[in-house]
């Protein structure tokens, strides 16, 4: 009995230490974003003595952060539509239809899943400039969809493979075309997985860095993640300003997590096989 008590205490100590390490940077981020630059020099860790929103004003007004949020608001929903459409139709074909060369085609999708963005970046840059896609949102959308789709296709395929065949067969007997089976029957059946796909998509696109960095060269077109990465290097920004920018950028993923906590952890599980 006594032994178990000690073990438990050790376990709690380990977990608390790990949690502290996860929370401390966040705490520091929030308190720093509320300090003036002069206060931060003397008071790095403590609570702000004279809290100010000056850093937020600077980032939003002078840093144009609002504009970057608007960019995300335009880009991500469009990207999601393309991503879902591609993954849903390909996943349905791989999961429920019969056609020649199915396995080799599926394996080639999985094989292409792993390549790092930098391996592709140079040629994507060349392609984008010869197709006139530099500095265009269309370019980012196409590249994002291409890069994220193999994984989305993989999870939709495994999902559709588990849907009973009778659903497809009975619709066929009623004379439904493949496309109406997909849109009228399979898409509604798959809606929980599509929800997971939306969350994975938002997270991937919200955090995507190298492609947006290479394609969007015009400073005003940047995404939030790109703006944050550039802020750090460009102006040698001070900690309070940088913290304010990061707090603003973190609001969306954190809000998503609080609302969809269960779906996100499920999504990560589905994602456990991602490349």
């Amino acid at each position: 009995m006594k032994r178990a008590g000690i073990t438990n205490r050790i376990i709690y100590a380990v977990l608390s230490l790990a949690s502290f390490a996860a929370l401390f940077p966040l705490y520091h981020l929030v308190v720093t974003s509320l300090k003036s630059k002069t206060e931060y020099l003397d008071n790095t860790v403590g609570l702000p003595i004279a809290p100010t929103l000056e850093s937020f004003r600077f980032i939003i007004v002078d840093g144009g952060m609002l504009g970057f949020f608007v960019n995300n608001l335009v880009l991500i929903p469009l990207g999601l539509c393309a991503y879902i459409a591609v993954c849903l139709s390909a996943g349905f074909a791989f999961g429920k239809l019969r056609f020649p060369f199915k396995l080799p085609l599926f394996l080639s999708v999985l094989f292409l899943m792993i390549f790092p963005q930098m391996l592709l970046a140079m040629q994507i840059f060349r392609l984008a400039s010869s197709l006139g896609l530099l500095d265009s949102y269309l370019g980012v959308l196409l590249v994002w969809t291409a890069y994220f789709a193999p994984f989305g296709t993989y999870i939709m395929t495994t999902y559709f493979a588990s849907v009973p065949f009778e659903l497809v067969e009975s619709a066929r007997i009623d004379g439904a075309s493949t496309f109406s089976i997909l849109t009228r029957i399979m898409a509604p059946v798959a809606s929980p997985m599509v929800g997971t796909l939306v969350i994975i998509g938002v997270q991937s696109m919200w955090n995507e860095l190298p492609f947006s960095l290479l394609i969007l060269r015009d400073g005003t077109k940047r995404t939030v993640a790109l703006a944050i990465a550039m802020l750090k290097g460009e102006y040698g920004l001070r900690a309070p300003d940088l913290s304010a920018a990061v707090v603003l950028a973190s609001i969306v993923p954190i809000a998503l997590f609080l609302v969809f906590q269960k779906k996100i952890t499920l999504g990560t599980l589905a994602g456990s096989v991602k490349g």
Partner: protein
Amino acid sequence: MRLSYKNEEARDSFLLLAPLFLLLALFIAFPVLSNFRFAFLDWKGFGTPKPVGLANFAAMFSSPMFRISLLNTGKLLLYIPVSVASTVLLAALLREGLRGWGIYRSILYIPNLLGPVIMGVVLAISLRDTGPFNSLLRGMGLDVLALDWLGSEHLSIHVVGLLHVVWVRLGFGIIYFLSAMSAIDPALYEAALMDGASWWKRFFNVTVPSVVFSIEFWTVLSFIEVFARMFGFIFSFTKGGPGFSTFTLEYGIYYLAFVNMKMGMASAWATVLFFFCAIISVAQLRLMKKREE
């Protein structure tokens, strides 16, 4: 003329797959293949590429930056066993169903949630020489431990390894292993308890053997992470510095191609990276097949 039922299904399938394969061909397969050609060319990102034979490869193998990047990638791989051990151990602790374990799980998931770019910026602020982490250490009288984490060429790559390979991915790994462990038959633990096995005995004789597959998979995922998914974190955390001390193959490609505008040279690096990735990809496919069986 109407197509036969079977041909119709095949035609529809290819129509449904067309958008995916068009995008993959254009933005993934074509770039991967073109890299091989460009590795034998001199190209600055504009103008006409010039053939240079094997010069890019010769320059690559004699470049200290390449040696450092390759060595760093190797050093980062050393953190994979650390990641496996700490993730499995923490998941095993959380699986005991302690009070409040759900909260711990959520808190530990935060670094994953914020993503590598934001985490890179946050950790860079926290670990500055005069930053909060060191203030905290000094406040506790641990001045010896208040090192210049990001400013030292010897230390920085290990900081990157510990933070990205182990720490940032920990929350995700815990959820992954918790679900694997939830499938273990409780009777196995009861039998072990009857035999009077200690916590560690149960951990090594029951938990670990039951999740061997997940451990293998996590290891492959970690390899993918190190070789192919570290750019965003390094870019926002250290920008490869100080010097070249946190360069990886992937970061080196970025630096050569888009900072130095030596695209041909970067393609030679990319060729090396391709072979590493291809090996990992095949390993992953084999594991996935094993799981299906």
